[in-house]
């Protein structure tokens, strides 16, 4: 009788080595610098790629199996949500505007992150980071897709989401998140890893995903909440990768430290400016609040981030200096942002409104130093005017910051009554900034930021009208033409929530579900 000999199986560790690092080889007839042309010019020195420690010993076959299982569960829940009219279980229809902001402002970034990590992975000669980037690249495209699928049910019933990707590339305020990511993917692979991998995914991600996901949970949005939980294990992996990247680069050569510090300073600030949108979402757009922006900043940045930078001190890395200014802005950021969207409600793909009395009281209690003094009088005036049929719609285009592309809405650090103006003369032209930090970022790489596609300037150059538009004809209405170019319908996708189709429909549909007609 023949003995059955069990097939020799690789242990986990060996298997991992064979399936990742074992796939690499040393080229014999091409030069390394020809195969990896982006490894030198950023000034980062790597001496030994094998020193890269893989935070997760995950191989591709395990990745597929694991993700497929998670996604089966997610889609089952999305189906249940859709079939049970889950959209009618949200707190009130104002909540849906949060979803609009997410799908047009954040989900397209997931897709760009997918491209960015694919590009960075291709650029690294070390097999460890290459495999890690490949997996994150796949995570990001999955996130873009699952978000689109989770949110598409809302698009069947509510306005403003029908062409989110087209809008992402055109609508004025969406140039803020778009240009942030464009800036990152047009940097070198090391800067990309520090900007997105570390500063965004590690330092700031809790301020982006936690507010949206817990906001969804608090407001009865099971679809978005489930997506968030499904992505959580990926996000944990991204955070670990971001930290590993930083430590690896810093340990390789002391000359890397000042370069990395400058990137951390730059990208913490760039990321924080994008979070302006999250700040106003938390304080104004969630009918049922989770915590205030200020509280979130204190927990997730000042406490957690503080501990992180203490840990990085042994490499010579210090807390980004912009943290001081951010601390001064935390009492004002969300109010200034919401005021801006209230101003420009005619040109956005979501609705705005004035907080009611209870919400004003909540804002006063969360912002005792600033709300009643600086913002309540403004809101009360707007509310009175709206009641008289004179709702404020600002129709004149704002001045934008050349770097972050946000309207110049931020006030001087320490003086919330004065707009902060900064400017630079460069090669015969003037450039304007919202802050010292945005100005410094420009000054370091002016050649890059003189190319900024600033929506306001582009409109005035005539580049934001549908093809064939003649702006010289009598009675030409620039706002109408720009909205057509955005693919937004005036009176349906924009303006105040109070007069919106969303509000009317939601009341009617929920009424059908809860009352006898």
């Amino acid at each position: 009788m023949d003995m059955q000999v069990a097939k020799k199986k690789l242990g986990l560790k060996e298997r991992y080595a064979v399936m990742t690092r074992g796939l690499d080889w040393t080229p014999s007839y091409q030069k390394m610098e020809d195969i990896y042309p982006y490894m030198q010019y950023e000034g980062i020195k790597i001496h030994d790629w094998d020193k890269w420690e893989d935070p997760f010993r995950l191989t591709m076959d395990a990745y597929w199996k694991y993700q497929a299982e998670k996604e089966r569960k997610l889609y089952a829940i999305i189906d249940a949500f859709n079939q049970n009219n889950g959209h009618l279980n949200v707190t009130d229809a104002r909540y849906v505007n949060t979803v609009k902001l997410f799908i047009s402002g954040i989900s397209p970034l997931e897709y760009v992150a997918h491209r960015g990590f694919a590009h960075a992975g291709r650029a690294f000669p070390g097999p460890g980071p290459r495999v890690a980037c490949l997996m994150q690249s796949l995570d990001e495209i999955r996130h873009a897709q699952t978000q689109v699928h989770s949110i598409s049910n809302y698009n069947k019933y509510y306005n403003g989401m029908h062409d989110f990707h087209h809008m992402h590339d055109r609508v004025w305020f969406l140039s803020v998140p778009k240009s942030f990511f464009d800036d990152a993917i047009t940097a070198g692979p090391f800067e990309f890893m520090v900007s997105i991998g570390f500063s965004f995914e590690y330092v700031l991600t809790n301020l982006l995903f936690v507010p949206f996901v817990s906001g969804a949970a608090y407001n009865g949005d099971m679809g978005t909440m489930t997506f968030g939980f499904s992505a959580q294990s990926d996000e944990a992996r991204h955070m670990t990768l971001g930290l590993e990247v930083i430590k690896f680069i810093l340990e390789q050569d002391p000359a890397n430290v000042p370069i990395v510090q400058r990137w951390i300073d730059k990208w913490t600030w760039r990321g924080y400016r994008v979070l302006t949108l999250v700040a106003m979402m938390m304080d104004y757009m969630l009918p049922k609040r989770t915590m205030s922006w200020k509280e979130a900043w204190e927990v997730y940045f000042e406490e957690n981030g503080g501990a992180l930078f203490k840990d990085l001190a042994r490499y010579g890395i210090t807390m980004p200096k912009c943290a001081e200014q951010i601390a001064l802005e935390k009492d004002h950021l969300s109010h200034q942002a919401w005021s801006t969207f209230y101003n420009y409600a005619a040109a956005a793909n979501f609705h705005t409104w004035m907080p009611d009395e209870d919400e004003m009281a909540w804002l006063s209690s969360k912002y005792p130093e600033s709300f009643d003094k600086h913002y309540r009088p403004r809101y009360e005036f707007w509310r009175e005017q709206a009641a008289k049929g004179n709702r404020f719609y600002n129709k004149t285009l704002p001045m934008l910051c050349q770097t972050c592309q946000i309207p110049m809405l931020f006030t001087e650090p320490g003086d919330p009554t004065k707009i902060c103006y900064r400017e630079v003369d460069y090669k015969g032209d003037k450039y304007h900034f919202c802050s010292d930090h945005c100005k410094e970022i420009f000054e370091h790489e002016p050649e890059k930021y003189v190319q900024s596609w600033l929506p306001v300037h582009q409109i005035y150059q005539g580049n934001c009208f549908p093809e064939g538009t003649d702006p010289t004809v009598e009675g030409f209405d620039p706002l109408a033409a720009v909205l057509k170019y955005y693919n937004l319908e005036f009176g349906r996708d924009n303006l105040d929530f109070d007069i919106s189709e969303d509000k009317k429909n939601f009341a009617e549909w929920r009424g059908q579900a809860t009352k006898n007609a």
Partner: protein
Amino acid sequence: MAVAAVSKYEFAPADTQDKFHGAQLLYIGWEDHLLFCAPFCFPFPPTMRFGDVVAGPMQAAFGYHPDFARIDWSTVEWLKSGKPVVLDFDKSLADNGLKHKDVIRFRTPGLAGIKGSCS
């Protein structure tokens, strides 16, 4: 500092004056009136009379605020790039020394926004 790049990195700036069809950009902010969330950006021909800017586009942009009608223009203080400047209503933008992408602000003494809140 210059941008780090693998090869020559030279691209035309996006907003030079030649791209605005004969207009130049002028940014205008009203101090202590944050009801308008940010300063405005306008395209004007350099030959436009400054008084016409105030009476036309500025009236249209800022007129919603109850303080605007109360402005005594003889007491208004103008700033260009943050420094005091005298602007003549009868002269053109160019003759007032205003160039493409200049930023001016105006302060209206005695008017400090809704209930004095700088809104």
